[in-house]
């Protein structure tokens, strides 16, 4: 199953909106470090990955986490799955 860029972006923004409701995700720089931009701690970030994995029915192995540090990186990674 492949995920379209649009579907990937929609899922990412929806999940991040639940974790960081005060953030303005529309203006988020796609190449900026998500954790720094949105002040996500390690548990927030893990909750983000768990939700992504669950909502898009994909497995995210430990070694892939380094590809998921930015919004653009997340979209690219999900499209490639």
């Amino acid at each position, binding site marked *: 199953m492949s995920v379209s860029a649009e579907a990937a972006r929609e899922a990412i923004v929806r999940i991040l909106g639940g974790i960081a409701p*005060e953030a303005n995700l529309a203006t988020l720089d796609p190449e900026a470090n998500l*954790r720094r931009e949105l002040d996500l*701690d*390690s*548990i*927030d970030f893990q*909750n983000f990955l768990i939700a992504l994995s669950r909502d898009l029915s994909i497995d*995210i*192995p430990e070694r892939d986490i380094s590809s998921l540090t930015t919004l653009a990186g997340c979209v690219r990674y999900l499209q490639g799955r």
Partner: protein
Amino acid sequence: MHTFLMPTLGADMEAGTLVAWHKRPGDVLRRGDSVAEVDTEKGVIDVEVFVDGVLAEILVPPGRKVPVGTPLATIHEAGGGVAVAALDSRAGQAEHPAHAAPETGEERPHEAGVLPVPQAPVPQPPGPVAPYAPGLDLLGRLRISPAARRRARELSVDPRAVSGTGPSGAITIADVERASTAAAPAPAPGPPPMAAPEPAATVPADRLERMRRTIAAAMSRSKREIPHYYLATTIDMHRATAWLDAANARRPIERRLLPGVLLLKATALALREVPELNAAWDQGHVVPKDQVHVGVAISLRQGGLVILALHDTATRSLDDLMDGLRDLTARARAGRMKSSELSDSTITVTSLGDRGVERVYGVIYPPQVAIVGFGKIVDRPWAAGGGLFVRPVVTATLAADHRVSDGHRGGIFLDAVDRLLQEPESL
């Protein structure tokens, strides 16, 4: 008959607003059931009951703000047990006799319209609810200095029952002391000098301001009363991180363990070797705690923090603790916490996370007697066995109460944390 009281949800709480009842009179209650929601500056808290029984009567309707220790409901206990039970000892209020003068006509206006008022009909209380705990009126409602308020607490005097002789009727320390020596019953309180009700609690900015104020109160008390001593040590984390990496490589994302959970478990186990750090300080005496409920300091996104108990930290598996930590963090940020989580912690761990700093010196959260801090894990040059290596290390700190322990014992504790982290498979 068991009396269900407004619990004290942390050392800094003075009052709470009853938001909703989850149970009705006649409902069967089990220990641990959430029976009501209470709104505090930390968010909406699910208040649990600590007895088995049947809800008899609801004494405080939704929308009313009452001081800590106010009876909220009565419960017929299962098996006709002893009248005053568990919740009271947790809340620390059972020892105080209901000495306060009956309150007359000082009922707070319902803060309906701004609070999520539930639809279920709730019986009105049979009469005005008597305030219960001494000196725990709402911050700022009385003209009373912090020192006089403190003195009132020490003397178990209800400041509302004291007539002030200071400027603008302010209550002075002398007034409190005079009221303390006056024969019981205390005079009926007059109307509060400041009659305007407090603004409702639902505006986040207001909540944040109140949270800052309560944190300030608890931390000022800590710095004023607790003779802290501080220790720090650097711990080699290469075994722990290698073990974690190997464990996580085999796990799906939702079972992934974070280093923080190893640090929490190691802290809890090390307390078995230095149990005096797992205690409360209560009016001049140390009260040892049998169970280890590590309080986790969780920062909130809009500012402020809460300390929530990760129950039975020493005896749960790492997986179970990880699930618990994720759940606690998510609910803390969403403002959905349980009363036991706010009131049960026996020691605190503060960790500023992997994007934070290398070292944190904690301020003890009263009535606890110690706080353990962990910085971020960083690669540093490390000499071992005659060789020089690059190793991941973490700085662990301890701030502890000199009334209860000394640096020697604190050092043994941090050494035990270190030793435990060298055998991560045993955690």
